């Protein structure tokens, strides 16, 4: 632990922290305040920190120009399904890789780990072809199946494995003595203990799905099926010029709920993350 600090040092530290916080806070601040300004004020120089005549027109127009409510629901339900699915897949696989000894374990782990290393730009074309042949283009299936079973879930499996490795072996010994099978041990003993890691997986996965951009633009083409990040880039006038206030209003609506949830649950959030085993 760190030691107590003198008053002067504390002041200096606060000063440093405040200055460092600017680039983290300013963009979000600008995004939200711009959504309340008329376009001409967004471009005002020097920038207005507070909107001089705040107005909410842009928020209304977001819903007029796009089926934004539907798009919100799409993003939300896809992210939830993907989160639950990923938790199941990664907890099982992570547990097996960490606690069960079977042949080929290492090689298979490496094979799975490969998913962590392949940028989605690389495999998006063949993936599109596969889903096209299955008739699943312009549906939400690719956005659900690929993250749960494909590359994005690998990080989750990795986190779970690292966590399960750190569990003391005696717990399982005790379970075995009590006559529990593998699955029961996993379900009744290991899984409840892994709540912090599962929490981290849930957060990672939800954010990943919520922010997914490349896959939706590739797989979806009807506005009522769009997800939020994709919808964000659609607010333009007839000549392709961006409608700044509307775009920022939509972006604010996308970001703020997640930010609020994060601020409320930030303790669990950050501490869960800290216990992922990613710390090495």
């Amino acid at each position: 632990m760190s030691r107590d600090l003198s008053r002067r040092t504390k002041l200096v530290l606060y000063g440093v922290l405040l200055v460092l916080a600017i680039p983290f806070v300013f963009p979000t601040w600008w995004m939200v305040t711009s959504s309340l300004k008329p376009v001409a004020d967004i471009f005002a120089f020097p920038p207005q920190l507070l909107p001089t005549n705040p107005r909410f027109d842009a928020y209304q127009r977001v819903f007029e120009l796009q089926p934004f409510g539907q798009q919100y629901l799409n993003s939300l339900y896809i992210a939830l399904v993907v989160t639950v699915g990923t938790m199941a897949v990664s907890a099982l696989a992570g547990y097996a890789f960490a606690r069960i000894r079977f042949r080929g374990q290492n090689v298979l782990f490496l094979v799975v780990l490969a998913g962590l290393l392949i940028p989605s730009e690389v495999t998006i074309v063949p993936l599109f072809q596969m889903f096209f042949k299955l008739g699943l283009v312009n549906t939400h299936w690719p956005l659900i199946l690929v993250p749960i079973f494909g590359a994005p879930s690998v990080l989750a499996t990795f986190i779970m494995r690292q966590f399960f490795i750190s569990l003391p072996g005696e717990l399982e010994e005790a379970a075995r003595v009590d006559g529990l099978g593998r699955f029961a041990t996993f379900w009744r003993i290991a899984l409840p203990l892994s709540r912090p890691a599962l929490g981290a997986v849930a957060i990672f996965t939800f954010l990943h799905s919520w922010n997914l951009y490349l896959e939706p633009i590739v797989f979806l083409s009807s506005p009522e099926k769009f997800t939020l990040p994709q919808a964000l880039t659609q607010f333009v006038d007839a000549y392709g010029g961006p409608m700044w206030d509307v775009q920022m209003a939509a972006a604010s609506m996308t970001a703020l709920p997640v930010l609020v949830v994060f601020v409320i649950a930030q303790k669990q959030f950050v501490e869960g993350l800290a216990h992922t085993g990613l710390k090495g």
Partner: protein
Amino acid sequence: MRAGKALRGVAVALAGALALTACGGGGEAEDSGPAKLRMTVWSANEAHLKLFNEIADEYRTSHPDVAEIKFDPLPFDTYTTTLTTQIAGGNAPDLAWVFENSAPDFVASGALLPLDDALKKAEGYQYEDISPATLKLWQNDGKLYAYPFSTSPFGVFVNTDMVKKAGQKTPAELIAAGQWTWDNALATAAATATKSGKAGMVIRDFDYKGWDNLSTFWAGWGAQAWSQDGKACGFNSPEMVDAMTTLHRATFTQKALPGPGTTADFFAGDSAMTITQISRASLLKDGGFGWDLVPLPAGPKGNYAVVGQAGVGVMKKSPHAKQAADFLAFLTNPTNSAKLAQFFPPPRQSQLTAETLAKTNPQLKPEQLQKVVIDGITSGVVKPSHSGQAELSQQVRAGLDPLWQPTADVKAVLDGVCAKIQPLLAK
């Protein structure tokens, strides 16, 4: 600010390119029932679409073999990428608008149906009324592959309030005095920018990336991006070096043009003047300032004009190509052409009169129409275009980037551009 644009470009290109990689499937089967036609356009403007639909409805009452005509607006800035990928992906429209910069690719690709017969045979069409100059870009081996429904000249929009407030002569006054030259235009822009604290002259959609819009400038010096046959690079010609030197000085020394990375929208009142096509006049309605539209200033080579063109063609692969061509003939016949003229300057000589155009362009005065539109269409050079435009355009953009620095060596940069693109031009 092109951030959103860039991202949408990426989105569309990816989605489209992927659609076409999914070979097989897709392609519409030949069907014998009443045809459903789809036409891709880049305008989502309600007034435009309303007019199209009116014309389409009228056509369908006399043509029961066509059940539906749908106008499908694709985003403006990624239009061509979306369209080409739709075509290759087996989801081609029946008719499509085509920009001038992709005209060579489309006309030569064999994707479009030759239109000569359909148009010439159509009743009351008056094919010979179409100005031959406007057709050149859309022809290959003597066949016409797309109809130039819009031949839109570039002009200079002026915020007269801002210019007067800065104590400068307005461009109209300069024209009256015979002094509307680039030297004076830039001086006016620079002085107004200094006085107002806003931007002077904005070459719209250039933004130090869309370099083909600079042809509205360098054409005054007689420069061109490449030779007529498209084989020789023109960027390091003496005319181009002169033009670019002037532009560079105007940007970095004179500050007549806003520098790279500065947002200034004329129609929001951020700049004194802007060079753009007259169709953008529609953006002025709530501008809240006095404005004027004047021709491009004279360059060292005298007066000149530049036009942007748009054509509409019929996809050869369409199962209803015949009906589509027939509808195109209807859409562009003299009656409908006159209706379309309110949005898109027509190629028909008989309709290129100030009076005709004035009826449907209430925002523009007859002399503005005469000077900018009619004179522009008859004498204008078309913006540069070449086959393989996407790659070529990217190479030129990357090559020109070093020019947008205050200390750039103009000649060296332009030599560099030629070194980059000559292999592509020679292909």
